[in-house]
């Protein structure tokens, strides 16, 4: 009986595009670059320049994003904008519920008192990481304002938190998994949606 799908035993799949394991990226490298450029302009516009702006990336993928945004802002406004990194492992609300999260270095560029801190993260999901980041930030001083920039907002908030700057809003189901891949951490820039837990399990099994 002819079949349009590859069976496990077949040597060569007849329709390679049907079982292509590489999902089409939601954002490719050019899209990521354009989103960051737009967010950079929005930050400069909203804050009337970058005089007191400090970018703070949340580990792991927020850190390279913050550094890139700082470079964009420096280009746009012609003056250097400081960028730093923030580890929220010590402030999470699920400590004791799961194995201890890996820790990273926190390195903030300057005293945060009176500054406008723009938190930067890759994906905004439940909002719990941002809550932890807000707690962590206030231990370093009292910023004049804290804003939030994310590359992808996938919805499903569990806390009253929203982003000020969004690269792309993506409606997702809870079962799906949004992966942001960056050159600095993953070798290439792109954002993909995978089917989530079940597909991950099968991918791990085959890896």
């Amino acid at each position, binding site marked *: 009986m002819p079949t349009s799908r590859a069976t496990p035993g077949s040597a060569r799949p007849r329709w390679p595009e049907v079982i292509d394991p590489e999902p089409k990226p939601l954002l490719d490298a050019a899209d990521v670059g354009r989103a960051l450029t737009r967010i950079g302009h929005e930050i400069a516009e909203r804050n009337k320049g970058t005089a007191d702006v400090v970018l703070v990336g949340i580990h792991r993928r927020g850190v390279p994003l913050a550094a890139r945004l700082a470079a964009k802002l420096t280009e746009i406004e012609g003056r250097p904008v400081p960028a730093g990194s923030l580890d929220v492992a*010590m402030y999470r609300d699920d*400590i*004791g519920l*799961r*194995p201890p999260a890996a820790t*990273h270095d926190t390195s903030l560029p300057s005293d945060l008192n009176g500054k406008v801190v723009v938190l930067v993260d890759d994906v905004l999901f439940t909002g719990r990481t941002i809550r932890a980041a807000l707690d962590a930030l206030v231990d370093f001083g009292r910023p004049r304002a804290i804003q939030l920039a994310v590359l992808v907002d996938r919805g499903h908030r569990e806390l009253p938190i929203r982003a000020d700057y969004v690269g792309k809003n993506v409606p997702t189901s809870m079962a799906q998994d949004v992966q942001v891949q960056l050159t600095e951490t993953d070798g290439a820039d792109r954002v993909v949606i995978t089917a989530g837990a079940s597909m991950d399990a099968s991918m791990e099994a085959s890896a």
Partner: protein
Amino acid sequence: MNKHLLSAGDLTAGDIRLVLDTAGHLAKLTDRAIKKVPTLRGRTVCNLFFEDSTRTRISFELAAKRLSADVINFTAKGSSVSKGESLKDTAITLEAMGVDAIVIRHPASGAPVRLANWVKAHVVNAGDGTHEHPTQALLDLYTMRQHFPSFDGLRVAIVGDVLHSRVARSNVLALKTMGAEVTLVAPPTLLPTSVDQWGVGVSYDLDAVLPKTDVVMMLRIQLERQSAGFFPSVREYARLYGLDARRLDAMPDSSIVMHPGPMNRGVEIAAEVADSIERSVIASQVSNGIHVRMGLLYLLLGGPAVTEPGRLPEEVPA
């Protein structure tokens, strides 16, 4: 990580790296205005000390407090132990009060292992008899890593009273796990009879070893032992096995001097060597101790409560 830290020999190379990396990240807290994080809120750590201690007890106490855990300090003096209460009854009492971790120092080798069989809390060995002192080894490795890029082939000489030293035992185990080359230097009377089974180099000649050493770790000579006849006189010991400026000059320029404290200045280490700004890392060993113990407490207590001994669940990397 295992549920308990009883011996440095139970730690894998991955465990040691994890503790040192975590300690390195937590060390940054010291530079902040607010040196405290809310991580272990609601957890209780009991320091159960049956022996005198300054730096280890204070170090554990500070580490737990910086992570916002509650700390109970128990010292044998002034407790029901002086009324004859046994270790087991003391442990059961603590358990009934609901502590999450017990840090124990005890004059009897093996006391922490016994304790771990009686309680559900995490047990951390903070020195038991002449057996082990694993957190000292971890902080010593952390200090070495600040000065040398790798443990692989790092030449470490441990000098002095190896026979009675729990610091030496724990360091030998951890350093061997990490691939360092360890040489024990001591008079024959201060080496254990089974030292040939430790898998490390042994020498009686300090001057021959020092030029080929990256890290020299001086052990305290317990002066009360002189009467037991381990060496003829303190002066002779200091002449043959003491680290003075002349011997320091014989070492490579990049080498460092360590001492777990408390020091006998003028016996195993000359004051000018102990205070050498370029070469002595003895003061940073103390501050590193807090960071390493913070890292350890976070890794032990930062996960779900575990009642059975063995490996703790690990995070699946995303």
